[in-house]
Structures are given as structure tokens and as C-alpha cells.
């Protein structure tokens, strides 16, 4: 820990060097100027925009591994991947697509390797509980995948081509056309890899690890008049993966995902009122083939209808909000009983900018359903801009995660009497703005009750129950700095997380939750040339609940280096770039017996015309 903190301090020091240069404000929220919106002001969120998305690998796993405090475990490159956000379980991170929760209704989690980030304009990482706004699963935090609708930009085409080691390719094309009142965009992304890398330090090769996926995103926006806008979003994801073999002679298996998402949104804006109505329909399908040579498979599929309504009313310095959600799931599977469930909730909130330096917000949510206990949730917080360079944020919330289709309706083993997981948490954030620099230091506490787990009985039969309580506390630091001297541009960002997540009864750390994680990234630009370096250090993790030291997955350090050159003139961009991934050829794995690739390479081209 000491080592990591000193590195971080050193980095901050490094940025303080830059102080005596001309001041350029970071685009951080400054209370004085904000107009209250339907967003959360008393917790922390990090926006990963298009330029960051392009320089990272296309999987959400890789993006967040290098750019956030979230710990990610991956069953080998491209295989099933899940997060631990602030020491929580894989199901306790909510993933939202344009505001709609897309965590699987069958497993409760999102496989982060089934999200191709090239299909989105921005990815937002929101730390901490957010169930009042984001619904179920938002306990450790939420990930927002967003498509932006732009107007009055004419015809724009963007092509991104990438090719690298192990026959890894990416092909992305986005075309958009917009006028003052109409906006249209269509994106097509295809990614794949033979993924037959050598396991460093061994003679083994990653067998049966090939994958490919296709993502199609489309948006339409129509401004009917000054007040009314209709937006349509849609997304199709089709992924095919073979699962890499745990041992060379094992039976080969494969997995297919097919997910569709579509949404109609009507937005009404006037001086005092913003009203948003969303109707979305999502389908999720998976098929697992225990032997790739046979047609036999197990499957699960769920169709979900979401209706969301929210009204914001501005009353002086106050913003009053109210809304309701209705969600219908219709699911079945080879081992899951066919069930239709109806879930509802109502939400009320108030935010007030009391004066130039003080803001508070409070909101409540009442869940309504007849399947499990309907919890009452809340979130409350304040933000105080104590000095021009220092602001303090406090937030407390109660959050939840609902039992999944697997938990409730698994043939013979599902448990219809399950309660939702509940999480009570509090956090304090200190935000420091120095010229060209911002530093956020957050401490939090989170207690999770009624953790939904499948545990074996004395005969070894696994059943779901509300098995455990978990106590989590931790510390996070987010650091950002940028600096421009003449034609030299330098950007530094770093995150560090210290996480203690313990089973209340045994006082043991949860498996696959590291105590430490550090990420740093450094980007340097000179005229049309830029270079970037990403580095992460994931601390060691326990893989057994008794925290036995001999089963630990070692800590690892991983670095990528890339350089790119823009050949374009004016607004046109013709970028050519190259990357070295795992620059130091580190031998590592994030999950037991799932070695990751050694040093490998890729090149890319980006045209934006």
C-alpha cells in the first residue's frame, strides 16, 4: 500500500510542477454556474469520452480495467468477464444503456466482454449506490453506455480499422447526418480474434478461445418544435465465443449471445418543466453449447418492457422531480420456468441550490411488486463549495438488488421466498481543484445485507438463499491534470482504490476483491503526433473464502503504449496509430488458471470526414 500511495503522491507532485503555467480550467462542475438538471451532484462520476474509447481496446472490460477503480476478472482474454466495483459482487454493478438497466435478468450481471464500446459515444462510470435513479443492482456503482444525438452537423463519416496480434481485428463505421431539427446516426462495429496466444512462460497455447461479435447502433432524433423532441435508440449485439480450454484435452465449448435493445423517448422541455417519457423493449438470449460439435445446448431468454416517466419542475432555486417506472419481464430457459413478472416503482426527489456554494439533494423510491419484499430506497447528499479550490460532497443511500430469474425460478432449486439484497452506504468526497489539476479523495462505507448466493447443503446440492452480510469500506483517489506549453500537450490521469470487503460472519475478504488497484495514464501530444502510456497495478486477490494464501492470484502490473499521427488537414482527421499491449511482457492472470497474453501489437487507422 505504502508503495502505491507514494507513487500516486509522486504523480500528483509531477502535476504540481505545471502550476506556474497559464491557467486553464478543467471542465469540472462548478456550482456557481450550473443549472440544476436531472443528475446526481453529490457522488462522483467519471466520463470516458470518444477519444479515450478509441485508444482503448473495444471491450468494456479492457476500457474500465485501464481507466477506473473497478476490478475486472476475465476468464481469459475475451471470455466471460465480470466487475467488482467498490468491493461488491459481479451482480452489484448496474449497466445502463441510454438510461435503461441492461443487466441480465437471468444472471443479474452484465458480461463486460459482451459490450463493444465502439457502439457508444461515451461511457460514464458512476461510483457508489444509485438505486433510486438506476434501479436494481446499483450498489457498487453504475456504468452508463450512452449514444449522443447531435444536431446541425451535416454529414459525418467515421471509419476505424484495427488489426493486431492473434489475428485480432476491429472494424467500425459510423455515419451520421443532422440538420437543425433532425438527427440520424448508424454505427456498425465488428470485432474478433483467433485469440490463440501463447501462455507466457509455458509451451501451452490458448486453445478454442476464438471469438467475434457484431454491434449495430442507430439513433434518430426529431425536434418537433421548440419544446418537443422524439428520440429513437436501437442496438443489436450478436456475439459468438468459443470458451478457451482450462486444460489442453478438455471438451470444447461455445457460447452465443444475442441481445436487442430499442427505445422511444419523448422529451418535453419548457421554461420550468422537463418531462421525459421512455418506452423500451429489450431482449436477451444466450445459448451454451457444452460440446461445440453437437447441437445440444442450454439456453435462457428474457424479453423486458420498460416504461419510464420523469418530470422535473423548476421552482426558483429548487428542482422538484417525480416519476414512475414499470418493468415487465417475460423469461424462460432450459432450466428456468417460464414466468412473467411485473415490477413497478415511484420516485420523488428534490434538489436545491441554496446559495452560490451550497447544494443539497434528496430522493426516495418505493418499489412495488408482489414477488419479493418491496423496499423503500433513498438517497440524500450535499455539496459545499468551501473554497474556490475545495468542495466537499456527502452522500448516503439505501440501495437494492432483486433476485434473478435463476434465483427465483430455476427448476426444482429456485427459491421463491428470496428477499432483495439491501445496501446502506455513506461517502465523503473531497474535491480539490488546482490550476490544471483536480484531485478527488473519497472515503466510503457500505453494508450489504441478505447477499443472494447459491450455497451447497450437506449433500452438496446448491440452492440460492439470502446467505451473508458483507461490510465494505474503502478509499478512492481520482487524479487528473493537463498542461499545455506551446505545442506540447500533456494529460495525466490516475486512480487508486483501497478496498476492504469482508464477510460479516467470517471476517474474511471476499474472493476476487483486491485490496489495491492503481491505474495511471499519460498522454503527450506535440503538433499532430501523440503518444500515450497506460499502466495498471491490480493487487493480489484471494480465490478461496478461507483466504488461503496458496490459492491467491498474484498481483500484476500491466502497461500499454501507443502512438498516433494525424495526417489530416482542417477538420478532417486521418489518424494512423500503433500500440504495444502488455509492453513489459508481464505474465499474469486475473482469474485462476486463465493466463493472459504476453506482449502483443496492433495498428489502427481512423478516418473522420
Amino acid at each position, binding site marked *: 500500500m505504502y508503495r502505491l500511495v507514494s507513487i500516486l503522491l509522486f504523480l500528483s507532485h*509531477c502535476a504540481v510542477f505545471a502550476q506556474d503555467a497559464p491557467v486553464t480550467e478543467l471542465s469540472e462542475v462548478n456550482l456557481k454556474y450550473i443549472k440544476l438538471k436531472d443528475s446526481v451532484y453529490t457522488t462522483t462520476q467519471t466520463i470516458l469520452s470518444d477519444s479515450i474509447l478509441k485508444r482503448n481496446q473495444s471491450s468494456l472490460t479492457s476500457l474500465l480495467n485501464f481507466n477506473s477503480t473497478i476490478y475486472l476478472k476475465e476468464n481469459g482474454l475475451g471470455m466471460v468477464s465480470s466487475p467488482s466495483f467498490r468491493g461488491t459482487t459481479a451482480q452489484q454493478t448496474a449497466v445502463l444503456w441510454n438510461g435503461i438497466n441492461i443487466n441480465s435478468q437471468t444472471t443479474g450481471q452484465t458480461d463486460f466482454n459482451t459490450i463493444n464500446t465502439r457502439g457508444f459515444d461515451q461511457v460514464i462510470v458512476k461510483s457508489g449506490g444509485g438505486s433510486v435513479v438506476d434501479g436494481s443492482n446499483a450498489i457498487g456503482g453504475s456504468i452508463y453506455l450512452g449514444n449522443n444525438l447531435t444536431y446541425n452537423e451535416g454529414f459525418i463519416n467515421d471509419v476505424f480499422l484495427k488489426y493486431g496480434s492473434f489475428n485480432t481485428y476491429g472494424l467500425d463505421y459510423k455515419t451520421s447526418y443532422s440538420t437543425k431539427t433532425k438527427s440520424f446516426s448508424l454505427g456498425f462495429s465488428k470485432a474478433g480474434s483467433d485469440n490463440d496466444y501463447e501462455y507466457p512462460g509455458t509451451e501451452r497455447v490458448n486453445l478454442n478461445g476464438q471469438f467475434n461479435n457484431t454491434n449495430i447502433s442507430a439513433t434518430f432524433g426529431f425536434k418537433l418544435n421548440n419544446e418537443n423532441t422524439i428520440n429513437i435508440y436501437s442496438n443489436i449485439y450478436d456475439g459468438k465465443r468459443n470458451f478457451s480450454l482450462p*486444460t489442453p484435452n478438455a471438451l470444447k465449448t461455445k457460447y452465443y449471445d444475442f441481445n436487442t435493445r430499442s427505445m422511444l423517448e419523448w422529451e418535453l422541455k419548457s421554461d420550468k418543466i422537463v418531462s421525459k417519457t421512455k418506452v423500451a423493449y429489450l431482449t436477451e438470449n444466450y445459448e451454451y453449447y457444452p*460440446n461445440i460439435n453437437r447441437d*445440444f445446448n442450454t439456453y435462457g431468454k428474457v424479453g423486458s418492457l420498460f416504461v419510464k416517466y420523469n418530470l422535473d419542475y423548476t421552482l426558483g432555486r429548487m428542482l422538484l422531480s417525480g416519476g414512475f417506472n414499470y418493468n415487465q419481464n417475460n423469461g424462460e430457459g432450459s432450466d428456468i420456468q417460464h414466468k412473467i413478472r411485473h415490477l413497478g416503482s415511484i420516485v420523488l426527489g428534490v434538489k436545491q441550490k441554496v446559495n452560490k456554494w451550497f447544494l443539497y439533494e434528496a430522493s426516495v423510491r418505493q418499489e412495488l411488486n408482489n414477488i419479493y419484499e418491496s423496499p423503500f430506497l433513498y438517497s440524500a447528499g450535499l455539496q459545499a463549495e468551501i473554497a474556490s479550490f475545495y468542495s466537499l460532497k456527502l452522500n448516503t443511500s439505501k440501495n437494492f438488488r432483486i433476485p434473478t430469474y435463476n434465483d427465483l425460478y430455476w427448476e*426444482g432449486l429456485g427459491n421463491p421466498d428470496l428477499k432483495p439484497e439491501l445496501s446502506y452506504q455513506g461517502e465523503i468526497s473531497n474535491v480539490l481543484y488546482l490550476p490544471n489539476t483536480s484531485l478527488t479523495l473519497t472515503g466510503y462505507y457500505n453494508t450489504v445485507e441478505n447477499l443472494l448466493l447459491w450455497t451447497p447443503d*450437506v449433500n452438496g446440492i446448491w440452492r440460492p438463499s439470502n446467505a451473508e452480510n458483507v461490510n465494505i469500506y474503502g478509499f478512492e483517489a481520482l487524479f487528473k491534470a493537463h498542461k499545455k506549453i*506551446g505545442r506540447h500537450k500533456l494529460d495525466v490521469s490516475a486512480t487508486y482504490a483501497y478496498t476492504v470487503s469482508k464477510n460479516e460472519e467470517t471476517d474474511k475478504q471476499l474472493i476476487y476483491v483486491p485490496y489495491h488497484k492503481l491505474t495511471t495514464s499519460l498522454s503527450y501530444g506535440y503538433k499532430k503526433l501523440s503518444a500515450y*502510456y497506460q499502466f495498471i497495478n491490480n493487487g493480489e486477490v484471494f480465490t478461496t473464502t478461507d483466504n*488461503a494464501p*496458496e490459492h491467491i492470484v498474484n498481483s500484476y502490473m500491466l502497461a500499454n503504449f501507443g502512438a498516433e499521427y494525424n495526417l489530416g488537414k482542417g477538420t478532417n482527421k486521418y489518424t494512423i496509430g500503433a500500440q504495444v499491449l502488455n509492453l513489459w511482457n508481464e505474465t499474469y492472470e486475473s482469474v485462476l488458471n486463465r493466463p493472459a497474453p504476453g506482449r502483443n501489437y496492433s495498428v489502427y487507422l481512423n478516418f473522420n470526414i
Partner: protein
Amino acid sequence: MNKGLKLLTICISILFLQHCTSEDREIIVDNQPLSGDYANGIFVLNEGGYTNSNASVSFIDASGQVYNNVFFAINGRGLGDVAQSMGFNGDFAYLLVNNSNTIEVVNKYTFESVITIENNILNPRYITFVGDKGYITNWGDPADPTDDYVAVLNVETNTIINTIPVAEGPEAIVNNNGTIYVAHQGAYGYGNSISVIDTTSETVTKTIEVADVPGNMIIDNNSLYIICSGKASWTGDETSAGIYKINMVTNLVEDEITFATGVHPGFLKKANNSILYTLNGAIYNIAFNDFTLPATALFNTSTQNLEVLYGFNIINNKIYIADAKDYVSNGEVLIYNMQGEFQEGMDVKIIPNGFYNNN
């Protein structure tokens, strides 16, 4: 040098320095007895986590000392993914590694690897020996009910020389003077039969119907005893459990005990003049000359806080029970005397599932 470049240089050197500190934990290997000393003791097979490839072997010597990770310590590599069972023949031990689809052949005294058998092995379960041949039950593709087989191993060449197709889910296998009995527990499905295989012709000569999910078999005085767990309630088609006594001369069911509805016993092993079986963490005794269900348990493991009863055997007048805990932590061995009095507990590795006497 201008300021920006200086700053860049500093930052980059810091990032480079970061790399110099990567350090891994050393692999922990217990001290081992001298090579050749794995005699007069008991091997405990720890199957390891599914797909984690961390199966291992522990050895309990005559003094009660435990040596873990025997295979790794001697051979410098892991045993594989999900060690299912083990068998002895001559100077050799055969370790069936289920999800690796391999059989590791080692010298049973030194534990040095002889060969890894990979061909014609798919989901191996149990092994028995007749003369210079080993017979290995294989599920094949577990989702294919029609490709299950018994592989015939030539122990001189360590190659599979024949495969005998059998019904779905062949599990336990025992030899009675050249006639082999295979219990069809079922793989993804549920079996309810015993195949009788003649090892001269290597064909199934008879199928004996029993209750659902036949498991352990023992031989006593020309009779084969077999425990059938029945289908549990969660299958949606619950059936009764039973213990069958089969005459091995006629290969006909001679006697049977039926359990009450909702009662599903687990393991069955041979004691001195009786059989012991497990049920919900308790151990029950049936004398051969009585062959009726006991009213009460011989003893219960609940005082030792057993979590999952995952392995059971009787060796040298002691009862060995494997506790797999929650499947994601190191397991424990519980040892009882024949009266059911707790003797001692020993820490072993992940998911212990079986005990093998190396005398």
C-alpha cells in the same frame, strides 16, 4: 530542454520505475517425506475447483502427519482439472482427472509421473483392474446420453486398446473374478441399472435393473451390495432410494431395502461385518446378516460442523469423511473410530473427495 519535455521525462521515468517492483508470491510446497516413502499411508484426493486446474493429492502417513500437494512437489506441475478418483495396480497409481480428460500414471511409492494417458479418455470417472487390464468408466460428452463407454487400458503399454459402449452415466465399477459390474448413476440424466461385463469377450452380458441413481458398490461373500440414492425432490420427479443385494452367481436381485419417500442416502462402504452408509451428514450401520434399515444413526458429523459430506471411506478400522466446506476453500478430513467417536481432523486442500489406502 524546455519545461514540457522535462516534465514528460520525469513522468515517464516514474512509470518505468513502477515496473521494477512487480513481485509474485512464491508457490508454497509443503515439506515432503523422502521419495519412496508414500507407503503405509493414505492418499486423499482433492478434486480442486471446476476449471481452476488445481486438483491435488494429500498424503497422511502412519503417524498422522499430512503432506499436501504431493503430485506437484514430486513432478513440478499440477495434477489437472477436477481429480475424480484413483486406483492402484502393481506399483502404480492411476489418477483419473475428469475435466482434463487425462489419466496420470505415477509410481505409488515415489509418486513420480510415469505417463499421462490422453487418448480415448473423455470424462473419466472410476477405474478397476483385471489382470493386466484397467477398466475405466467414461461419460463421454456428458450431454450425449449415447456415447458413454468403458475404456480398456493395457497397463503394460498404458494405451487404451478397446472401448465398450454402455448405457448413460457409467460411474462406480467393481471386479469380481473377471466379471465387471458398472453402476449407471447417470450423467446429465439419471440411470437405474447395473451393466455386467464379461472381460474375456469385453461385452455387456447382462443389465440388472435397480432403483434410480445407483452409486457405491461393495462385494461381500459373493453378493454385490449397491446403494441407489433415488431422484431428489428438486428434480421434479422424486423417487425412492434403496440398497440392493445382488447374487453374483445368478446376477439376480436377491434382496432390497427401500428408504422412505424423501430420504436420499449418499455413500456406502464395507465395514467388518456390516455396511455403512451416509445420510444428511450422519452415518448409519446395517449388519450383513440383518439387512434392514437402522432406526438410528451410528453417529452424526454435526458436532464437527461438517458442511458438505463429499468423501467417505473405511480404512484400517477408521472412518474417513471428507468435508468439502463451501467448495471454495480448503477442505478438511474428519476421522472417526468404528464406534463413531471423533478422533481428529486434518486440513487438506480444495474439495477433498476420496481416500485411498497405500499399503
